């Protein structure tokens, strides 16, 4: 009996191996049931695939088979996430939507992603695309900086785009800037400027607060200083006098500065006690704590990076706006530039600035304020309005 079962088992193995090696790749690839947990994969994946990834299903299903990306007339784009999921509702997802947009716009013929599960796979995941003849590889996250730089050197005929990868010429990157590599960076001061101006215009007490992470991180400093500059700009325009208090959580180490919601809430509360009626939270969970406190005290709350109306549901009803770093459009734009032979040079590409919609508080924003906000955004984008915030905090 035992032998019989052994033989059966062996036959099963053999059939798996034989079919795996022998079957031609005729079947259509699936539309990536994008789910977060393994258990979900069993029960919810089919619906999730249908509802959460409609673009993907629509764009990949008809073509079915991956085209030959090595052909010059087939433009393929690969996307490598940082350790995390493609449907994280923030960082990775918004950038991947930019890649998908390039496909639905007809710019890219084929797009594909690889989710990184461990940082040691960065090189391999990037190389998987480059070796398959992809024309462009988009890597998203600061941690992929070195892997992307090295891949760009190794594959000079492939374009590389790095999100949040502020490279400069240094010991580890001696050949920067490379002609086939661009890092997407943001003018956070402009986004801070926009929400600062908005807060100054809708504030009744003309006292504003901002609770931020450490100013040793340049983007955080730019947000905070931009916020001040925006309020000052509107003051000058409307001859008001707005008092802006920006507090950076620079008194603790890096382990704490972005993960201290209690401090954020306490600081926001003390600002509100002194009369502030709008709080800008800029700095991870620390800022989120401030935003939540502001919402509890029923003053205006302002989020950061993404539209936090969606990510902080407890504070949604008091969420005036968020200082945004849009990712979708710049990714799509760079893909188009590369395809048109106009890949950005100089190693850095400035992503757009923006502010989130007012959502539940739309009625609190008068039409003239909204018009002014649109004018500010246009002015900042075309350069006619300047924040005058330097890129990094000047040395004392």
């Amino acid at each position, binding site marked *: *009996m*035992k*032998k019989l*079962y*052994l033989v059966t*088992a062996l036959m*099963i193995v053999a059939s*798996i191996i034989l*079919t*795996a*090696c022998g*079957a031609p*790749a005729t*079947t259509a*690839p*699936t*539309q*990536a*049931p*994008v*789910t977060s*947990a*393994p258990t979900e*994969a*069993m029960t919810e*994946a*089919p619906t999730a*695939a249908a509802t959460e990834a409609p673009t993907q299903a629509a764009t*990949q299903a008809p073509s079915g088979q*991956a085209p030959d990306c090595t052909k010059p007339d087939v433009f393929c784009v690969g996307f490598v996430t940082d*350790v995390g999921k493609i449907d994280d509702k923030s960082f990775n997802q918004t950038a991947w939507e930019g890649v998908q947009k390039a496909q639905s716009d007809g710019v890219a013929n084929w797009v*594909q*992603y*690889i*989710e990184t*599960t*461990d*940082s*040691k*796979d960065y*090189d*391999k*995941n990037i*190389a*998987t*695309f480059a070796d*398959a003849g992809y024309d462009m590889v988009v890597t998203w996250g*600061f*941690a992929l900086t070195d892997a992307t730089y090295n891949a760009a050197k190794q594959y000079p005929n492939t374009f590389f785009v790095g999100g949040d990868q*502020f*490279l400069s010429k*240094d010991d*580890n990157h001696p050949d920067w800037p490379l002609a086939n590599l661009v890092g997407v960076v943001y003018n956070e001061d402009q986004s801070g400027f926009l929400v600062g101006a908005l807060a100054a215009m809708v504030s009744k007490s003309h006292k504003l607060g901002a609770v931020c992470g450490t100013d*040793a*991180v340049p983007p955080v400093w730019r947000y905070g200083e931009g916020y001040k500059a925006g309020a000052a700009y509107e003051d000058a325009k409307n001859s008001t006098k707005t008092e802006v208090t920006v507090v950076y959580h620079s008194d603790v*180490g*890096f*382990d*704490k500065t972005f993960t201290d919601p209690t401090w954020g809430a306490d600081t926001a509360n003390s600002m509100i006690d002194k009369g502030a009626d709008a709080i800008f939270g800029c700095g991870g969970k620390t800022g989120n704590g401030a935003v939540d406190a502001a919402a509890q005290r029923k003053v205006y709350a302002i989020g950061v990076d993404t539209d936090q109306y969606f990510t902080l549901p407890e504070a949604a009803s008091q969420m005036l706006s968020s200082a945004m770093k849009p990712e979708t459009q710049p990714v799509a734009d760079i893909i188009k530039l590369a395809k048109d032979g106009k890949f950005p040079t100089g190693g850095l590409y400035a992503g757009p600035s923006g502010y989130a919609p007012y959502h539940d508080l739309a009625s609190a924003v008068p039409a003239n304020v909204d018009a002014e906000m649109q004018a500010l955004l246009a002015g900042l984008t075309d350069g006619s309005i300047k924040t005058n915030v330097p890129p*990094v905090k000047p040395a004392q």
Partner: protein
Amino acid sequence: MQSSNEPGFIKNLRQWLEPLIVPLLAIITAVILGGLIIKSVGGDPFAAYRGLVQGAFGSKKALSETAVWATPYIFAGLAVAFAFKGGLFNIGAEGQLAFGAVAAALIGYALPKWLGHDIPAFIHIPLAVGLGMLAGGLWAAIPGALKAYTGGHEVINTIMMNYIALNITSFLLNGPMKDPNPLNVVARTPAIAKSARIAPIFDGLRVHWGFVLALLVALLIWWILQKTTLGFEIRTVGSNPDAAKYAGINVQRTIIISMAISGMLAGLAGAIEVTALNYRHELGFAVGYGFDAIAIALLGKTNPFGVVLAAILFGAMRNGGTRMQFLTQIPVDIISVIQALILLFVAADAIIRFIYRIRVREERVVLTRGWGG
């Protein structure tokens, strides 16, 4: 069929294969179930597994990456397996591994600065790896001593000490050991000095001498367990501490040594990852290796060579996942599902024995005697 005149080599083969049956059937069953899951979410299991195999073994580069993945799994798997032999369940490999990595990184980048000049590689590498090993060993010796002298259960203590180790690591990498480069925003140490880096074996491939070391260490662990007095003592304490005590073995000392060696192996896993692969310690690297190691030790039946095979299997699955995703866009989570199923079937081998009607060990002993060897 099972006649007494069966040639000797077949009997030997049978004895070798016997312990492999349950793990192999567990793997096959898990793979089949995984295929059904892929099918049920609308994927093509054959395309997925083809991608997995190609990604793991399909090219020189794929083989190299599989070895890279297997290396820490071998060390950490040996760590857990060694403790098992001593009757101890070391769930703390995760924390011991983290400390091994921290110590190796610190020696790697800071020692030349402290001394004020460069260190030759033949001193620097053993120092970084050795102190990483020591850090893991000391960290594991604490729950060993608690067990030996107070009876505090090592499962609870090693779990608790994981949290302590991981939080201390987080503090160090965010604070005193953080890469001071102003452009750096993540929790990681500076890169280690060139003299502390273990070289790749082949140009252009990442597989490094750490993999060879892992295989040698597996051999060494087998030798310690089977051929030395210490190994005998450890196994005796593991199977029956009372009998060991009666036989004159210092049980307390043996427990501490078992845990210390187990921790040294886990520390080695972390130290090698730093010195041979990442060239720095970064928070979030190697997350879960210590827990995967438990599965690997169980799948390898706590036999050092079994651990090597299980580690290579797990490494291959982790590595091949990239190509599977690339070809089919099936989420890599399926790999975790299959690994979990394997673990389930190995741990609860009654399921496998029931499905495939394999007799339990007691009967097998009778059968073996029946072959009349």
